[in-house]
């Protein structure tokens, strides 16, 4: 059994993490950290110059990702990670600029910036961690909260349908659009690696569990239950493709 705290070899992802910032603020069963693993391996695997790589986040649980990465980290205002990243990239084109933020941040308050960065094909990689709720503020309905879901601001169920991000970003002209879940760690790593090597506006949505603030109010179990759901629904869809019209968030969208 290897439970000794002093390990002979370090966790490889620590190479790109700010070790003095761990433990993270994320809840048990939260999937944001899992997406960070895929991102870390993608960064290391592609061999891009980490000194020339900046990560920009907005506000929210996923907005804290930038602060855990041992890169040039910018934790900006709510919704404005993309325009900050736009300025960073324009003024120093040598930088690889990655925006890593949440669904509420990028698509509600920052929706206009997402639309226009895609339209102008700004050379950014945007990773949108979609936990379907405003989690940092205590579980309020977001633009990505599925219809009929319970949240603190929709105590009778949300009346509004959710937004489909890949279709939105695709319509705005993004050159690379992908969607995975936190269950698909290897696929996500490969997609991130591919996106890191590509130029232009690249968008990856990752659906993640939020056990504390989304699933608990909707009787959806813990983080592991959500991960199992992602796994099983993918297998369902592979067996019965006609079921793909459902929520859609759990299927891979498309890449080009």
């Amino acid at each position, binding site marked *: *059994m*290897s*439970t000794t*705290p002093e*390990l002979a*070899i370090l*966790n*490889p*992802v*620590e190479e790109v*993490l700010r070790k003095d910032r*761990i*433990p*993270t603020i*994320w*809840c*048990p*069963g*939260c*999937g*944001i*950290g*899992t997406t*960070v*693993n*895929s991102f870390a*391996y993608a960064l290391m695997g592609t061999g891009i110059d980490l000194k020339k790589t900046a990560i920009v986040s907005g506000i929210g649980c996923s907005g804290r990702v930038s602060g855990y990465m041992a890169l040039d980290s910018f934790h900006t205002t709510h919704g404005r990670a993309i325009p900050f990243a736009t300025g960073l990239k324009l003024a120093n084109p040598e930088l690889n600029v990655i925006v890593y933020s949440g669904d509420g941040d990028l698509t509600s308050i920052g929706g206009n910036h997402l639309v226009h960065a895609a339209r102008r094909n700004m050379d950014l990689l945007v990773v949108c961690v979609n936990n379907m709720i405003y989690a940092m503020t205590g579980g309020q309905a977001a633009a990505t909260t599925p219809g009929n879901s319970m949240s603190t601001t929709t105590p009778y169920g949300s009346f509004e349908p959710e937004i489909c991000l890949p279709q939105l970003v695709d319509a705005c002209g993004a050159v690379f659009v992908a969607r995975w879940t936190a*269950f698909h*760690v*290897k696929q996500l*790593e490969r997609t991130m690696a591919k996106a890191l090597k590509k130029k232009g506006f690249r968008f990856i949505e990752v659906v993640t569990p939020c056990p504390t603030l989304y699933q608990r109010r909707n009787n959806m179990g*813990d*983080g*592991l239950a959500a*991960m*199992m759901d992602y796994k099983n629904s993918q297998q369902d869809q592979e067996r019965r493709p006609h079921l793909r019209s459902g929520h859609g968030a759990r299927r891979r969208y498309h890449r080009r």
Partner: protein
Amino acid sequence: MPKGSVAITAERCKGCGFCVEFCPTHVLELSSAFNAKGYHPPHMITAEKCSGCNLCGMYCPDFAIFGYKFPDLKGGKVGPA
């Protein structure tokens, strides 16, 4: 003879169980012991089955576990898959 093993930093663990569930060879189990924060970190129950594939490390949201392969006598390298 196991091909690899896992390293666990118990104090980082939040007991989500992702590593236990998604280990392809079912090597792990949440232990009954607590860490300082009151979570049950995983431990190996069938160490001989571990392939060192590091899927547990990919899933762990808290960077508390990772897998690594044992040195291959035929000239392989140490480190995660």
